[in-house]
């Protein structure tokens, strides 16, 4: 059901923006399609291998191990480990999300996986060293990361509190 809603939203947005581009009559549609094709070529092989790899890794790793390291009961240490894992996970969103959702499925805790995704988003080393530092400079990068550093832990803690509250009410 939810998947249908997300797809409807997506295609609704494509339709609305496509209409705007069409009404411009200046080749906007053509240029958009060209860009979409370039991105699709880039993304398609990556998502294929990312999904396959994450699935196989999830099948290989014993669930008890995942639960022991980043399970819901691992608390603060688990949040720390999950954040560190997020920071060192290379690659684009397809790999990080594939790994994170596989971990969630085989015993990772919601707060820990939230910390993982947040750390990957805010400061994964791969993106920071390859793109951010060379483009925006070392100083701005380090300042940005300095303030972002505790965020994955804080969001993980908040998610844990919310789960606890929800459990005590439900």
């Amino acid at each position, binding site marked *: 059901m939810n998947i249908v809603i997300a797809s409807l939203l997506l295609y609704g947005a494509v339709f609305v923006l496509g209409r705007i581009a069409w009404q411009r009559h200046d080749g906007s549609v053509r240029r958009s399609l060209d860009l979409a094709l370039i991105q699709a070529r880039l*993304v398609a092989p990556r998502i294929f291998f990312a999904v*396959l790899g994450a699935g196989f890794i999830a*099948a*290989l790793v014993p669930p008890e191990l995942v639960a022991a390291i980043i399970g819901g009961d691992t608390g603060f240490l688990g949040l720390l480990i999950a954040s560190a894992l997020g920071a060192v996970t290379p690659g684009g969103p397809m790999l990080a999300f594939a790994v994170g959702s596989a971990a969630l499925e085989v015993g990772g805790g919601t707060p820990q996986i939230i910390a993982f995704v947040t750390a990957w988003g805010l400061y994964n080393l791969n993106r920071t060293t390859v793109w951010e530092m060379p*483009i925006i400079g070392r100083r701005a990068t380090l*300042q940005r990361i300095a303030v972002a550093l505790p965020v994955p832990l804080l*969001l993980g803690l908040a998610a844990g509190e919310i789960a606890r509250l929800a459990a005590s009410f439900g």
Partner: protein
Amino acid sequence: MPDPAHAGRRPKGDVGLLVVASVAITAGALCYFLKGPEVFLATLGDDLDLLLSILPKVLAGVLLSGLLTVLLPQDKVARWMGARSGLRGLVLAGLAGALLPGGPMMAFPLTVALGVAGADIGTATAFIAGWSLLNLNRTLVWEMSFFPHDFVYLRYGLSLLVPVLLGLSARAIFARTKAEAPRKDSASEGNAE
């Protein structure tokens, strides 16, 4: 092709794909030999199912990002946003990060353009945080495809205020170093490279 910028960029992308592909193939082989052909085939089947269900969203996602890139010219967005300051500037920067599609090759050059247009470290921080935590294209296409939706809502909801808060923190902590910057910069510019 002797274009060094181009030659330097290409292999990086391919290395990324190579890493993902070799991890997938190694994991697949290990799965086959350690867990047996049955587990291997079952996993492969699940993965292909997931790929099929993701496909329409990926299609919508690349169309959307192509359209937004053409309809929202980044230099205009940067000029418009860079001039805004205060809390409003932070909110707008976070919002722009959430709305503008594209990978790091879009986000970081745009951050530089923001700086050129007058944005400070707070605005830059809010923009990057908005892009990395709240980007709609990424969440709708990738995150929702992989994660249970209540997980996505929880993570997204918790992250909503983060860009503005990080922007405020960066401003509060680093505003002083920025004020001293003219002296330092003129001294270090000569030494740099």
